[in-house]
């Protein structure tokens, strides 16, 4: 179950994955989703900052460096609200599983690290649904930096936290910014009861732990049948040459 802010339970399951850049959470969420789909569950995958509604605004803000900590924080809330309304809430009401790659805790950690008020940002997300399970992939700062900065990739302005004026050097700025975020996460873990996973473990081992944690919560979750068009192609000797043209493109099976 997941819960509306007022405490009303929803029949679906909301699994949240959190962690700083370089914690390996995206790999873990990908493995988790594949496992659940393989088990036949009806799964909605929702990724932080992915709503098409605000994409052009965020892009403009980043490109022209127009974003302040406040407007950056608010834009994320628009993205979140749109996904909540059109994607996560409907799926949870229907009894399906929602896997969220980052959730409100990302705002609580990153926006606060940027200087936004702790209390205020918690209030902004007062409409958020309480997750069934929230996993936090905890990784030592040095390890995450090693993973991200190997090969010295180019860091973008906001990604490196250059808007905070902590340092002129993008790499140094990034490290200082990440440290702040990590400290906020540590507070959040206790405050919201996140389940901590040691992200320094081998990834297969981590995924084993993830599945053990998730498995007891799957009872009653909505399942779906695979659509089976491959079988038609095989038995009818068709190539499916027009299936690609379908608008919008589908994610089958």
């Amino acid at each position, binding site marked *: 179950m997941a819960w509306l802010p007022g405490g009303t339970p929803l029949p679906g399951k909301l699994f949240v994955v959190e962690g700083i850049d370089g914690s390996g959470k995206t790999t873990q969420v990908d493995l988790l989703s594949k496992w659940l789909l393989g088990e036949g569950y*009806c*799964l*909605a*995958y929702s990724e932080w900052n*992915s*709503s*098409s509604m605000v994409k052009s605004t965020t892009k403009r803000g980043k490109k022209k460096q127009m974003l302040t900590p406040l407007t950056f924080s608010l834009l994320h809330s628009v993205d979140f609200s*749109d*996904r909540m*309304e*059109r*994607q996560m*809430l*409907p*799926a949870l*009401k*229907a009894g*399906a599983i929602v896997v969220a790659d980052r959730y409100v805790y990302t705002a609580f950690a990153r926006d606060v690290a940027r200087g936004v008020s702790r209390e205020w940002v918690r209030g902004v997300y007062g409409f958020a649904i309480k997750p069934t399970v929230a996993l936090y992939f905890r990784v030592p700062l040095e390890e995450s930096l090693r993973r991200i900065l190997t090969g010295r990739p180019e860091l973008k302005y906001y990604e490196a936290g250059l808007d905070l004026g902590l340092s002129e050097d993008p790499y140094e700025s990034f490290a200082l910014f990440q440290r702040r975020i990590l400290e906020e996460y540590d507070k959040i873990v206790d405050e919201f009861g996140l389940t901590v996973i040691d992200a320094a473990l081998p990834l297969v081992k981590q995924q084993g732990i993830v599945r053990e944690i998730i498995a007891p919560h799957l009872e009653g979750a*909505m399942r*779906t049948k695979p*659509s*089976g*068009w491959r*079988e*038609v*192609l095989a*038995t*009818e000797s*068709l*190539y*499916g*040459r*027009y*299936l690609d*043209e*379908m*608008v919008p493109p*589908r*994610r089958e099976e």
Partner: protein
Amino acid sequence: MTKTRFYGNPLPGYEDSSKELRGRLIVIEGTDGVGRSTQIALLREWLEANGYAVATTGMKRSLLAGEGIKAAMTGNDLDNTTMFLFYATDFADRLERDIMPALRAGFVVLTDRYIYSIIARAQARGVNRDWIRNLLSFAIVPDLVLYLAADVQHLLPRLLTSRGFDYWESGKDFLKDEDYYDAYVEYQTRLLGEFDAISQEFDMRRIEARRSIHEIFGDLRQEILEALSGMKPIASPSFEETTS
């Protein structure tokens, strides 16, 4: 060969009903997410493999009005009547520019929805029934209308696994006070009710869509084969003669 029949007054330029159309007009109808486009993709390939020339069309694909409708729909402020008229314009343009010429030339025209979806959507929003019918009476009567029928519970999974519920598919334009899930269930239930009601009026063949793609494909193919009787597919030349 089929006689040219219209629901009401003939399309301008087609008043002489003794003119016959060589092709066949086959409509695949059904609500959002029932699997129409998958079936049309499969049917098109199968028909072509069997020597038929196939043309396909569908809502919002007209040269004249397709982009205009899409642009208007991003604004979320289309009035019921205006939206209906815009869809009718899109349909008329495709009928005159794409469908009729293809039928005259002997194509099998597979259309992803026809006037019935436009009617069902407008009726679900309370637009006057007689006015709707009169307005769309220039439509040609198809050779076959296949209606893919499912219930809301069957339609949900596709949406749940998508990037999010669509504003219009959820009827949010007129069910503003409900959340997306409730609006979707109410709107699609209404829409299916309208489809059931008009399926008899317009002689639609009901195909049970709560089955596997393969089973549905088998039924559609059967119905289409009957509708194509009397039509000659393109003969395949024998390749063996040319090898020497």
